[in-house]
């Protein structure tokens, strides 16, 4: 990993009104903007950047907003629950659960409390909070630090889910998430942190439920989320050298999900490969595949293919880890298998 320059944390304006920021800087920008724009926003926890060098960005946030960051004990049930109660009573907390595998400690708070409250009170009470995790295979995380629980959360009505893949998206989606009156699950991936993107110098709120075609193509649609968008784009580059034109669609949010955008793309290409870091069974890819099979069966000229994490716990050693995860090479192979 390159050593990030964290000395300048504000985007430097460029003539065309945007700045080149890393994904991590996009996160930090979104957090700073959210804190600055609403005095009720609080950060609970401070491992937004994991143990990467980018964690120094939290120092800047602390200095700017010394009274707005709370360092909770190692008590995920306690501090996620605290976030829920704080949201009920007037704050807009952004609660960091850090590594997504830790989400299972407060899982009851997330799926059995936060997700249900608005519904089971008949609409009386709102829980405007954001729950942040860093999901996925970060490298050497083994079975207990490598989870991608977004499919489990998608299977839980009452929580919105954002899975950004770029600095611009994470910054713009975060602004929308913090202003939403519902619980929002925010899944980042530490392997995205170094990725550079153009980010507008003006404030931007990216609406939920609006997919973005990250690359236009005609032969096959590749749908990915979070880090898998980057792998899909790498695969599309490689496929282009073979004369295969792949379209890469990034839903950006799972809840709400822009089904129409995926169906429209499949309508153009007739083929679908889904790249998903969840385990294959009942993963994000499974739901997307089902929707396309239900609603665009006639448009398909080939079977839907999923490139997902194998249905095994994540192994520690790198060769085994790479064997089970959805790699760029596997995406390329899946596309080629469809185009024979």
């Amino acid at each position, binding site marked *: 990993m390159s050593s990030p320059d964290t000395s300048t944390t504000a985007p430097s304006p460029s003539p065309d009104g945007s700045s080149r920021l890393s994904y991590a800087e996009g996160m930090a920008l979104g957090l700073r903007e959210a804190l600055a724009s609403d005095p*009720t926003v*609080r950060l609970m926890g401070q491992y937004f950047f994991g143990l990467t060098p980018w964690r120094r960005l939290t120092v800047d946030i602390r200095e700017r907003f010394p009274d707005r960051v*709370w360092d*909770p*004990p190692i*008590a995920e*049930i*306690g*501090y*996620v*629950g*605290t*976030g*829920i*109660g*704080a*949201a*009920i*009573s*007037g*704050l807009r907390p952004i609660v960091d659960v850090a590594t997504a595998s830790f989400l299972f400690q407060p899982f*009851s*708070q997330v799926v*059995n*409390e936060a997700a249900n*409250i*608005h*519904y*089971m*009170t*008949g*609409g*009386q*009470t*709102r829980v*405007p909070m954001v729950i942040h995790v860093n999901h996925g295979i970060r490298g050497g995380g083994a079975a207990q630090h490598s989870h991608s629980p977004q499919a489990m959360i998608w299977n839980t*009505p*009452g929580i*919105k889910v954002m899975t950004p893949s770029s600095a611009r998206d994470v910054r713009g989606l975060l602004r929308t998430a913090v202003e939403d*009156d*519902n619980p929002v699950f925010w899944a980042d991936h530490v392997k995205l942190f170094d990725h550079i993107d153009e980010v507008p110098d003006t404030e931007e709120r990216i609406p939920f439920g609006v997919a973005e075609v990250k690359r236009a193509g005609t032969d096959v649609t590749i749908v990915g989320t979070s880090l898998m968008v980057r792998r899909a784009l790498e695969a599309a580059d490689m496929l282009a050298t073979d004369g295969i034109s792949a379209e890469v669609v990034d839903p950006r949010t799972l809840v709400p999900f822009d089904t129409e955008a995926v169906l429209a793309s499949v309508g153009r290409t007739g083929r679908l490969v889904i790249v998903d870091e969840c385990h294959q069974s009942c993963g994000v890819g499974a739901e997307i595949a089902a929707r396309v099979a239900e609603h665009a069966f006639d448009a398909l000229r080939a079977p839907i293919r999923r490139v997902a994490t194998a249905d095994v716990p994540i192994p520690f050693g790198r060769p085994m880890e790479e064997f089970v995860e959805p790699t760029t090479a596997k995406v390329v192979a899946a596309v080629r298998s469809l185009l024979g």
Partner: protein
Amino acid sequence: MLPDLPAPELVAQLRTMLRIRRFEEALIGLAADHEIGHFHVYVGQEATGVPALALLEDGDVAYTTHRNHGHLIARGVSPAGMAAEILGKATGLNRGKGGTLHLASAAHGFPTTSSSVGGPLPIAVGSAFAFQELGLDRVSVALFGDGALEEGAWHESINIAAMRRAPVIFLCENNSLEALGQKANEYPSSTLAAVRLTDLVDPFGVPAVALDGTDTRAVHEAMAAAVARARSGGGPSFIEARTVRWPGNRPLWPQLLTGETDVAYAWDPERIPVEHEKWWARQDGLLRFLRELLGAGLLTPGDASAIDTQARAEMAGAMTFALQSPFPRPEEALEHVFA
């Protein structure tokens, strides 16, 4: 003993206790003929909840449990709306989406009611966190049974509350006294290695008291001190209010094993049936409070009977309202997933 309060307030508390008692008894009667699922009643704990919650003000919040009916009535929630919710009707507090386990009335300071044991504990701390951060002079109350102290959420919640000096009151209603539990095929009692529940609080430096939950003066004074501490920035408090489990609360489904309450038991011991003499003569907090009011000359048997007659009529009306209310349209099941 009676709390040091003006007579009209004490009589008002008796009225609230009787309204709770008659609501629960009417509900048990209703359950015989209508499917309302598993439910829990507050019979026998009125002398804790009523004086304790009377000390809260508008804007204070309370997070209760599956045994919530008495708490809501104590803070002025409409019994008709509660009964309708318990029957899943459109006129229910939660529009038929919550039922007995989740009765909530945000307008009365019950933002949400969780039936997950221990689940609301950190949420109550969270409201207190918000009150601190927003500079509000408000109190958050976690109402829970002794069983919740078995949960890990308890440890995490008391730790955070203590470290933050959060304005939260942990009011544990220990209704397991004389409960037999699983081994007797009854409703389970708590399973804790700790002998004294306050031992689970002491290491955190939070003031903790254990008291008789049928002693309204003790409840009032402990809760008043806790509320004052919370409002003045003194941080959290823990109160264990001990009550004997009402015999009708021992089976998995509540039953009127003791028969309905007869307020005359308070002034005419001859009427008390032998089978449940211990309960009616010594363990029921409501009757104890009534006896103390009578003994202090603050009301007459006739006054008590009149209040009781009103309470019975009100709850009969609440049940009728619930029965006559329509169910929500089935399609409403798809509403309120998101705000």
